[in-house]
């Protein structure tokens, strides 16, 4: 399985990763290598096998719908790159 530079650019955009033009070739080589490795799965016969999503095959645990978090707004916003009046600032979304 090999990925073309065009496909790599598409995947990088889906993953929202800016990749420098000069690095695209290297990523396409690396990702193609990883997919070759992954393609070894083709040797397995998995017909009628139930997929395993979780080691214990556990069910999602439910809890009571109660407020357990304390209000730490200031502390939590302290890590944000840009804030104003208790809101996260981002570049303009709508004109």
């Amino acid at each position, binding site marked *: 399985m090999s*990925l073309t530079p065009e496909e*790599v650019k598409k*995947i*990088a*955009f*889906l*993953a*929202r*990763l*800016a*990749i*420098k033009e000069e690095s695209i070739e290297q*990523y396409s080589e*690396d*990702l193609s*290598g*990883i*997919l070759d*490795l*992954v*393609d*070894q*799965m083709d*040797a*397995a016969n*998995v017909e009628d*096998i*139930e*997929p*395993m*999503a*979780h*080691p*214990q095959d*556990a069910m*999602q*645990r439910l*809890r009571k719908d109660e407020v357990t978090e304390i209000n*730490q707004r200031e*502390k*939590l916003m*302290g*890590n*944000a*790159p*840009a804030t104003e009046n208790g809101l*996260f600032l*981002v*570049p*303009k*979304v709508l004109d």
Partner: protein
Amino acid sequence: MSMDNQMINKSLAELSVGLQSGKFSSVELTQFYLDRIASHDSELNAFITVTAEQALATAKTADEKIASGSATGLTGIPLAHKDIFCTDGVRTSAGSKMLDNFIAPYNATVVEKLKSISMPMLGKTNMDEFAMGSSNENSYYGAVKNPWDLDRVPGGSSGGSAAAVAAKLAPIATGTDTGGSIRQPASLTGITGIKPTYGRVSRYGMIAYASSLDQGGVFASSAADSALLLEAMSGFDAKDSTSVDIPVPDFSTTLNDSLQGLKIGLPKEYFEEGLNSEVAKVIEAAVEEYKKLGAEIVEVSLPNTHLAIPAYYVIAPAEASSNLSRFDGVRYGYRCEDPVDLTDMYMRSRGDAFGREVKRRIMTGTYALSAGYYDAYYLKAQKIRRLISEDFQKVFEQVDVIMGPVAPETAFKIGEKSDDPISMYLSDIYTIALNLAGLPGMSVPAGFANNMPVGLQIIGNAFTEGKMLNVAHQYQQVTDWHKQTPSKYAVSEGEK
């Protein structure tokens, strides 16, 4: 004998006796290890952040608890945390430029539990970025050096914790293991490491890489020390939706059980081509030692072993691509300069702040989960995961534990594999399968090959950590591989 000698090369139980009997205080013990970090860490690079002030404050509290009789056996013993566990008020970087400025606003459950019994935190240890790597070369803060040979890697991703314990910069440390990230560095640095059963240790506050595989555990100088810390870290946590609600046994009480009649399975797939012959000899010698202890050896087969790495490199990157989507430059972490719009901000923030290996895995996962490929990759990998898990369950109908090598080779040179991701991935051949199955695994020092340490892997069935620690401890009663320390770090400063 100087007081320093009472604080190094001692078991946690001995350190505890020293503290309780007043031979030394927790403040003295903590300062002793902070001094060792100051003397040695510039060459090892095991720590990203040293938290001296906080450590000494906790040590003072510990001394008060000891004086008032409200201490536990671990109170006052300092430790190091992998920099993947959130620590309230202290930078928690996960080895990434993305979180270089992130001050965690709360403690991970593991951190909280150990803080509540006043174990001073010496600092946060270096790691491969977001726990993606097997050499610790993928850290934004630079590679960690192996204390046995500074030109070699300590393994990864928890390489900082492994190097810190191996060089006696900390009596004990935490780590995490998604595909071998505790066992492989423990093996490469000659210390004892345990990755417990998935669900045994809370993942709350542990920065997520691949959530169905990630599990916290311990780096220590012995199985007996591991038993003490693992017990203190373990237990049900309502804050982790995959935490398992079963009692935590007192792991220390079964350490001395006899191994007479123990059935050890040796999977033939773990001794085939690819295993270094010197490493194989060490493992065979360890198995001989177990025979002397009364164990019976059974040859077994894990026929789908060869599918573990391919399936892992779908499941882990898929989960990572989802988990790491939270790093968007909005609420925390790195944001690029002068973004022109939202898309530009996402793309350049993530493009600038994630390293190459992280980008590779995010893109692999994004591809595997993208429209039209889900069945061929993710669903197929989950089916293979079931086959691998069933292989282990069949073997555990016949045997009590499985043994084999941890890694096919000893520690490799820094830079040797850094341009070859696939060869790096293949070095996790013996460790990855049990993460897929959710099982516990250990690495126990078993000797040397080409002057570098070799770890014996012990794999148990789910929630049999007590048995595994017993099996490791009995071996450590008749061997002294776990007591070997690189000569440079073997003695205290006063003796030099």
